[in-house]
């Protein structure tokens, strides 16, 4: 197959599928529609709360899937066995600050069952390698929500206040954090720890060593130890371009432990997002552990592949006087040479092409 046969999106989709299958992730297909109730109950898990709904023939309110993970988790068996699944699906949602629903192609994988260090490290490695397949210039930001939640747990503040502080950490908003901590009566020690964690951002291994030397509570240290084990594994896989960045904050109602987000140069927003989401399973009454990520393929259109010099390699031109059999002979010759061609009438506008085969009364060029 010629490289130009596939769009960047299609090529990456196939490469990622090959990557996931190579590590034993089983392809999984979910239906296009899902009961709306599933999303109502887990609104905050969704990237956007708006869901495209319709009434099914039995009157039940259905939705065009805005997310794949919820459907996979809903159907996951809770029998202690580990399932490794990968998917490529179309989802329907309103991107942030956009004005309407969009059809978004996403691919990803989920590991549900027992998620030990190896399984988590494997998923993290696959996230990094997914980004690597898209572009050499990538960054995978990694964090563990346990580090920040450990710090916040020492303060007598409610969930809403925690969400506010985490959102400021997510913005790397040091000035806002200082004001909010003062307003909420958060201790100076916690305020200092939070700003130190915001500032601690950089290559995973080195930054982790710096963070380990900070004054942090025991629960945060446990999370850091987990990140250290991930760092060692990624090093063994020979993976670089992984940063520690505590501004990766996902909703703690659903996520616990490792969270990560991937970027490639040239695409202005995150292209990969994932993490450990045991809490989501718990909310669904399941006791398995889970980790996974999604890659948003729609954004790959922004990575402009080199524009082909020609719309078609050869242009076969004919008119009323040309015998169709003559056209067949000419095109079969081109096909045998492996040349792509387009056949059109003489009066039609001429696309960019490398050679012209003229079957009109004039002499061939």
């Amino acid at each position: 197959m010629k490289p130009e046969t596939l769009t960047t999106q299609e090529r990456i989709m196939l490469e990622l599928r090959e990557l996931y299958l190579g590590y034993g992730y089983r392809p999984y297909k979910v239906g296009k529609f899902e009961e709306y109730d599933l999303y109502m109950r887990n609104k905050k898990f969704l990237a956007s709360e708006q869901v495209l709904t319709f009434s099914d023939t039995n009157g039940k309110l259905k939705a065009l899937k805005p997310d794949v993970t919820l459907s996979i988790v809903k159907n996951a068996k809770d029998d202690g066995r580990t399932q490794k699944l990968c998917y490529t699906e179309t989802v329907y949602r309103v991107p942030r600050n956009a004005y309407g629903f969009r059809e978004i192609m996403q691919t990803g994988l989920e590991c549900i069952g027992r998620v030990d260090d190896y399984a988590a490290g494997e998923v993290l490695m696959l996230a990094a390698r997914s980004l690597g397949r898209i572009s050499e210039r990538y960054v995978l930001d990694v964090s563990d929500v346990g580090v920040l939640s450990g710090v916040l747990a020492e303060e007598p503040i409610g969930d809403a206040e925690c969400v506010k502080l985490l959102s400021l950490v997510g913005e790397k908003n040091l000035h806002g954090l200082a004001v909010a901590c003062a307003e909420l009566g958060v201790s100076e020690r916690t305020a200092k720890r939070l700003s130190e964690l915001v500032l601690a951002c950089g290559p995973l291994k080195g930054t982790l060593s710096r963070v380990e030397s900070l004054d942090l509570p025991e629960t945060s240290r446990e999370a850091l130890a987990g990140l250290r084990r991930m760092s060692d594994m990624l090093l063994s896989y020979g993976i670089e371009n992984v940063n520690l960045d505590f501004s990766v904050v996902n909703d703690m109602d659903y996520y616990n432990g490792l969270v990560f987000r991937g970027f490639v140069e040239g695409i202005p927003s995150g292209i990969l997002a994932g993490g450990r989401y045991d809490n989501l399973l718990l909310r669904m009454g399941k006791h398995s552990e889970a980790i996974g990520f999604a890659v948003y393929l729609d954004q790959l259109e922004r990575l402009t592949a080199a524009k082909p010099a020609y719309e078609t390699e050869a242009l076969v031109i004919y008119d009323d006087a040309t015998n169709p059999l003559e056209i067949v002979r000419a095109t079969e010759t081109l096909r045998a040479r492996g040349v792509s061609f387009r056949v059109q009438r003489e009066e039609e506008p001429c696309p960019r092409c490398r050679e012209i085969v003229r079957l009109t009364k004039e002499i061939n060029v």
Partner: protein
Amino acid sequence: MKRMINVALPKGRLGEKAYALFARAGYDCPELLEENRKLTFENEAAGVRYFWVKPSDVAIYVERGAADIGVAGKDILLEYAPDVYELLDLSIGKCRMCVAGPRDFADPHTGILRVATKFPAIARRHYAVQSREIDMIRLNGSIELAPILGLSDVIVDIVETGKTLAENGLSILEEIDPISARLIANKANYKFKGEEIEILRQSLEQAVRA
């Protein structure tokens, strides 16, 4: 090779003040203030490329990555909630987002409160927290006129000195948030130009403190 940082500045007085800070921080580009038809301005040695955009568009340019960083009022950030990093409070363009109304106004909580504003998201959030049902009246300017003519009960708007309010028999009823200009950055571009942006942020921080 030094990577250029694309900077979106808000047209107008706030942008000029912001540029003065950038210049003091070592990122000057004198032609920026000249009368000309150029749209982008570069100081290659300092590694910056500036462009002027409408103040309310700065966040869009940055969120969508056309600018790596930009200067936007906190009012715009609160209203549009763009997915960007907010790296520094530039402490310029200081004002307050307020609820204002007739001096003697007291919300009777008996009916729907009519609120005129240029900032519907901020107003909606403010009253949603109080579970107060409101009739949002979206205006584009001369907000103070609304309560005077009985178009609304109150307004949600930015107040700098309060002089315009006072001259029209209005006063501040509630303060919602302090506002000032902020340095914002595109999250993805920050991953690839992080070093340059961080050096610029630190220089700007020193210029702000000075």
